[in-house]
């Protein structure tokens, strides 16, 4: 866990890709869930932030 946070601080690819992946996954679940409309409303921005972040952080050093 501390490795994950130090990776975030030192701008390492693994940790940041994990954050982006969680955001994309969360966005997709929010988009398709049948429970609350507000989650659907904010799903696109969540997925978009995750996707853009994924593209950027995949150029970070290992």
């Amino acid at each position, binding site marked *: 866990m501390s490795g994950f946070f130090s990776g975030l601080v030192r701008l390492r690819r693994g940790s940041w890709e994990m954050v982006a992946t969680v955001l*994309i996954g969360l966005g*997709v679940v929010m988009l398709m869930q049948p429970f609350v*409309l507000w989650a659907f409303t904010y799903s*696109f921005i969540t997925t*978009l932030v995750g996707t853009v972040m*994924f593209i950027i952080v995949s150029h970070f050093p290992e």
Partner: protein
Amino acid sequence: MSQTTLDQAAQATPPRAARRIKGLSDRAIAWIFVGPTIFLLLAINIFPLIWTINLSFTNFKANRANRAVEYIGFRNYERILTDSDIWLSMQATAHFLFWTIFFQVLIGFTLAWLINKKFKGNDLWTTIIVLPMMLSPAVVGNFWTFLYQPQIGLFNYVVAFFTGADPSSFEMLGSVNLAPWSIVIVDTWMWTPFVMLICLAGLRSIPDYIYEAAEIDRASKLRQFFTITIPMVLPFLMLAVLFRGIENFKMFDLVVQLTGGGPGSVTELASINLKREAFEKWRTGYSSAFAIILFVTVFGLASIYVKALNKVKER
């Protein structure tokens, strides 16, 4: 005769031009070959994408192309993401996506595992199983519409034979509860062979000596399955899921042929809703925004999936 013509053409080329062509660097030659492809890619993929993003911020209607176009900011996105009909169509898409992939992977892998056993006529069985995949979705949609007919349809009679229910007591395409499952069944029937073929390629790539070594170590068949077969087929299986996931996310033709999105809108998948907004209501700006939302979702999912696939392959 043609040789003479070629010689004449070569002799007619001015010496300076000939030297220039002869002196092309490898990089320039590479650009000459790659250039047309890059141009086509830009013209057919990148330009429409940028144009769609641009349209998604406008109130443009394609059937009123002469009307002045206004930039309305994020209003299209706002409308889509608070629209309960779009929300329902995303839920229908999620239901379709999850269950088709689940059944296709389950049945496809099982079939591949069985076909991989060496028995007489397994090539013939492979060909027979692969047949549905080769048919046009329009044809499949049409004949499954007949199979689902409550009065004369074979499907109802088969279900009635096993359950004892009256064949005309249920209507697969007309019932709100059964229609979502009817499209899942047809897509599974059509595309399970595709998953099977990919799994079969994975199974056949496992060398026999690994199983022989496991036999010598007295590993049980179950242990061999979970520690050799599944991990080695996993990259292939993930690839199949990726292909089917992207394909089913934009599923259109088969569902239009079967239910047309009905009854009501229970089988109105995102792509059908998108087509209605774009080409029936002619809300081009609105539908562009919807298309961008779907694109970002698929792109994001595909990115993390390809990453996971590479990790599995590295193991």
